[in-house]
């Protein structure tokens, strides 16, 4: 199979397979998780239900001062790479075109030089959090194989996309095909791994905030 045929496969059949698994997995897990429902709470609320859930979604996006002092790399690196990832994925024009092609939605993109810079910063932040994970004994102890695999699966699309745009290592066509393939692998793994937090984080925060509010620790 030549490079262009490989690219056409990942743009066609490969994408169809990956999106199928992704959509199937996401719907399955979301409906199953949220469909389970919570056990009826028989205790009287300590105070009237407020907006604790929504406040928690917002508040937990920012580190607490003490925590920040203890683990600055985790927080800053984590925040930078998540925001960077969001910018690269959703504001690079070819990505927007793909989303438009699949879902019909589109919005203005950013110039490729800005995307390029954000990609480098994002990769640097990801490498930093990985090094921190390896160097800090506690973090290393808590890490499993799955943590390293998911890190690599997230890092690969960034790296291959950047290499493709920069024309490094391999011919553009082949690198672009590898980039798309790496995203497809990520899509397939996402619903069945800890990467599913992309869909559940805010729901979990809301739930925790709401329960805490119910118990009297409103925020």
């Amino acid at each position, binding site marked *: 199979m*030549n*490079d*262009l*045929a490989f*690219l*056409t*496969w990942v*743009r*066609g*059949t490969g*994408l*169809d*397979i990956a*999106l*199928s*698994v992704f*959509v*199937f*997995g*996401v*719907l*399955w*897990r*979301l*409906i*199953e998780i949220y*469909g*389970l*429902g919570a056990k009826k709470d028989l205790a009287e609320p300590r105070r009237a239900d407020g907006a604790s859930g929504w406040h928690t979604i917002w508040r937990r996006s920012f580190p607490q001062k003490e925590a920040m002092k203890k683990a600055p790399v985790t927080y800053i690196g984590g925040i930078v790479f998540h925001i960077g990832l969001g910018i690269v994925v959703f504001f690079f*024009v*070819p*990505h927007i*075109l*793909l989303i438009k*092609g*699949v879902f019909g939605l589109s919005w*203005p*993109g*950013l*110039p*490729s*030089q800005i995307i390029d810079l954000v990609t480098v910063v994002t990769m640097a932040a990801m490498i930093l959090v990985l090094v921190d994970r390896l160097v800090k004994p506690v973090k290393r102890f808590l890490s499993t194989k799955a943590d390293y695999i998911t890190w690599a699966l997230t890092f690969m699309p960034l790296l291959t996309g950047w290499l493709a745009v920069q*024309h490094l290592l391999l*011919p*553009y*066509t082949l690198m*672009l095909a590898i980039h798309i393939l790496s995203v497809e692998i990520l899509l397939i793994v996402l619903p069945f791994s800890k990467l599913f937090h992309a869909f559940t984080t805010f729901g979990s925060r809301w739930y925790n905030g709401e329960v805490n509010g119910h118990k009297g620790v409103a925020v």
Partner: protein
Amino acid sequence: MTAKSSFGREPGSVGEGLARRGISRRDFMKYCSGVTAMLNLPLSMASTVADSIAKARRQSVIWLSFQECTGCTEAITRSHSPTLENLIFDLISLDYHHTLQAASADAAEHAREQAMKDNDGKYLLIVDGSIPMGNPGYSTIAGISNYDMLVESAKGCAAIVAVGTCATYGGIPKADPNPTGAVSVAEIIKNKPIINVPGCPPIPVVMTGVLVHFLTFGKIPELDALGRPKIFYGETIHDRCYRRPFYDQGKFAKSFDDEAARKGWCLFELGCKGPVTYNACATTKWNDGTSFPIQSGHGCIGCSEPNFWDAGGFYKALSMPANPLSMAKKAAVAGVVISTAMLYANRGKKAAAKAAHETTTLADLEK
């Protein structure tokens, strides 16, 4: 010996032929300087190039045309006509070429056999068109199948130049569902050096450039993984496109005749395959350097790449899915149905657990 002293003096040489046609040494040197620059060689090499070409014996060339449309021949012989490139082309000894030779029938075939005999091991074989492997009768010349003629002619050649995307990668005849079982030259001939000069058609100056390189150095130029000379196929159309700055700024034409298209914005969204097409169109251009497809307002269709005909459609942006995502829609429906079934199963389990729950009384604890 310098080019000056040899030009036009050696009988039977290219130089002598040029001089006889009234080409001055000055014109010839100008051409050689241009070729030297095109081949990415230092300008000091111009006199060496000139010397080699001028002294070279007229290179015997056999041109075979198989499943093709003659567009490659049209491009090479007509589009720059008349230029020095054409004359150089004339001055190789083109011993066999369906379209261009005067002889026909047996005489034509005899010319090919004679050239093969006289120049055994030295002649250059140029092939355009793909070879049908499904049924030999799909394409024959003088009753000889394309496959047989290629194998026979390739035996005594010094090298093969596969011209056009059909000969290099199968091209349009090989497009899905490939009714004739078309294959490229390289899929049949394995023991000869093959230079692939793809394009539909290839750029004329690229063709002559490859020949000049062969005449000058007596060997084939450096090739990429797809057998293409790196000199001409080393960079993508996109990288050398004059519309590239608009791509980087995120400025795209939305239709072929909108304001953005008229301003010369990037044609990526209209399906331009420039980013994945390795060719020299954006630099050498066509029709004596006049223009190239993107400059004329149409996106690149990627004609010098293998399987370009089946690469997801000419008017679909590269970032768009190549095929309709039919499976994904079914998967979405399946996801909802299966998870809803799971949901009811889980709720059933929950209800069953609740029903089976035994309450503990004080009496139980005192037992």
